């Protein structure tokens, strides 16, 4: 049997009271983090993405023009490990 992620299965050594307090802190932190993320992402969207979007639209990335064909030729895929070695 292969053991994967042993750290994920660590058992807590803390008492129940400390654990409850920690859980509450985590919950509050998560909540605040969500608000902070939403604010920052909204700012990024309004200040960066939206203006950039005006330029992006000129290139019609969603192929909105009705006269475009459905198919797009696909570049041939070379079967080498290098091409498959990166996430882009």
């Amino acid at each position, binding site marked *: *049997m*292969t053991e*994967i*992620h042993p750290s*994920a299965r660590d058992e807590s050594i803390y008492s129940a009271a400390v654990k409850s307090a920690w859980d509450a802190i985590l919950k509050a932190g998560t909540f605040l983090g*969500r608000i902070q*993320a*939403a604010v920052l*992402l*909204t700012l990024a*969207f*309004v200040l960066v*993405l*939206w203006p*950039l*979007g005006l330029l*992006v*639209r000129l290139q019609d*990335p*969603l*192929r*909105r023009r*009705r006269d*475009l*064909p*459905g*198919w*797009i*030729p*696909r570049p*041939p*895929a070379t*079967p*080498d*490990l290098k091409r*498959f*070695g*990166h*996430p*882009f």
Partner: protein
Amino acid sequence: MATVLGLSFDYHDAAAALVRDGRIVAAVAEERLTRRKHDARLPELAAAYCLKEAGISAESLDAAIFYEKPLVKFERILTSAMASAPASLAPFVRAMPNWMVEKLWAGDRIRKLVGPKPALLYSEHHLSHAASAFLASPFDRAAILTLDGVGEWETATMGIGEGSAIRLEQSVRFPHSLGLLYSTLTAYLGFRVNDDEWKVMGLAPYGKPVYADRLRQLIRVDPDGGFRLDLDYFDHAGAARRGFTPKLEALLGFPPRTYESEIEDRHRDLARSIQRVTEEAVVALARAAHTRYGTDALCIAGGVGLNSVANWKILEQTPIRRLFVQPACGDDGAALGAALLASHVLYGDPRREPMAHAYWGPGTSDADAARALAARGARFEVLDEAALTARTARAIADNQVVGWVQGRMEFGPRALGARSILANPQNPRMKEILNEKIKFRESFRPFAPSVLREAASTYFEMPPDTDSPFMLLVPPVRPAWRDRLPGITHADGSGRVQTVERAPNPRYHDLIAEVGRLSGIPIVVNTSFNVRGEPIVGTPDEALNCFLRTGMDVLVVGNCFLTKPQPLAMPEAPVGAVR
């Protein structure tokens, strides 16, 4: 010779699959092990199972391959958000935290899972689908179609497979998507996207295609099979959470149905209409693939491949004569496709044998079953092979509903005789009984038949050499048999048939043959062993829990035979893997 672990996760239906020396060793969706439907999280349990089944550790892997390229997908999300600004603000803010914290780091998470030694590879979404279909098929040369909602950018591809090589030559890109068209109408009909598309297909035969002309305005299909959506009606990247604009409502002339509200005739008609339009597009694509590549063999994968009615139309209306549809058509199957791609195309392992069955998940031996049931205090009999077949067939012929757990679990969404609920198709009340007492699901949904392969063309209008081992074709039931098979004949006289050969599952084949001897027709109703909203059961424990909670009469696990009443209650906490 290479050992490769394929992984798909972070969208829906996470899965792992292991291929060694060109042979499939194991494949399972994470949901079956965590008991969380459509579980999309990193498939830790599925990966651990695959390694265990292969008897190796992660260090022995040559490679782990992710089913798509996450950064290209991220680029699509950002580009769509920019192109649809400012309407895309809300979905952007909703989606980004998950991308920042998890999805962008898929590679790191895989590294943690498999350690530093195996090579870490990234396939492409539709290439993984294509590989899952062609490299698992029995064909040496075949056209390939992949059709789904969306991968990185692509929503459909067409290409050719020859030997171990796959050449995808053209694609349709987001937001023009046949899968998203169907999903958008699924949402309009008040069903859940990526979950309830089955219901639209099941509802369709009750309606008339009165909206088909209007829906044809939503999609333009070119003579070469390429297609595009009229984006005035869709809002896949914008603020509309259900993916359509008010213009669609104006076109259809009635508001979207709300979830769980009453289904009216107009909803049935709309289901029939979108099914009709989808079939037309799929048939056009198949015809175009035949014209372009001049072969009558076609491989299909991607979520749209689960539209088994459309698959049948391909055989009925095009020159395609040999069709292989990957049984795990969705993103779960893409994990297998990625592993096959790495094994055959990147490492050069020869193709060994086609995927003749779907039994690649965790298994239950007869001894395991007896041990597990005894540990729960269940009262059961251990039967020899002949008695097991005879007693189970008799129960089915006597209109009892049987839970059936044998061998390794199926990979893919269909139960194919390893984790199935079985019943008598000749009982006119059987649909009602199954829907109300066991499956707890909508009354309009049909039940599928398992038939001996050698008898299939007697009962269904399919040529004698047509196989449907994965229940992905819906031929008409022959008119002479429709009245005698009310349990599996849908409103339009069709049945989503599974043809059963003996080699992959001899016990199931023998059971159906015995039902044939007792009742005159070698067919059983076969529906998945679960209740609404839960994944299909895996272990004897889970099967026992489901048996106790529902109106099933008999449970057969391995060679153990149980009937009700049982001196058991449900355990307080669900039994099964939890994390």
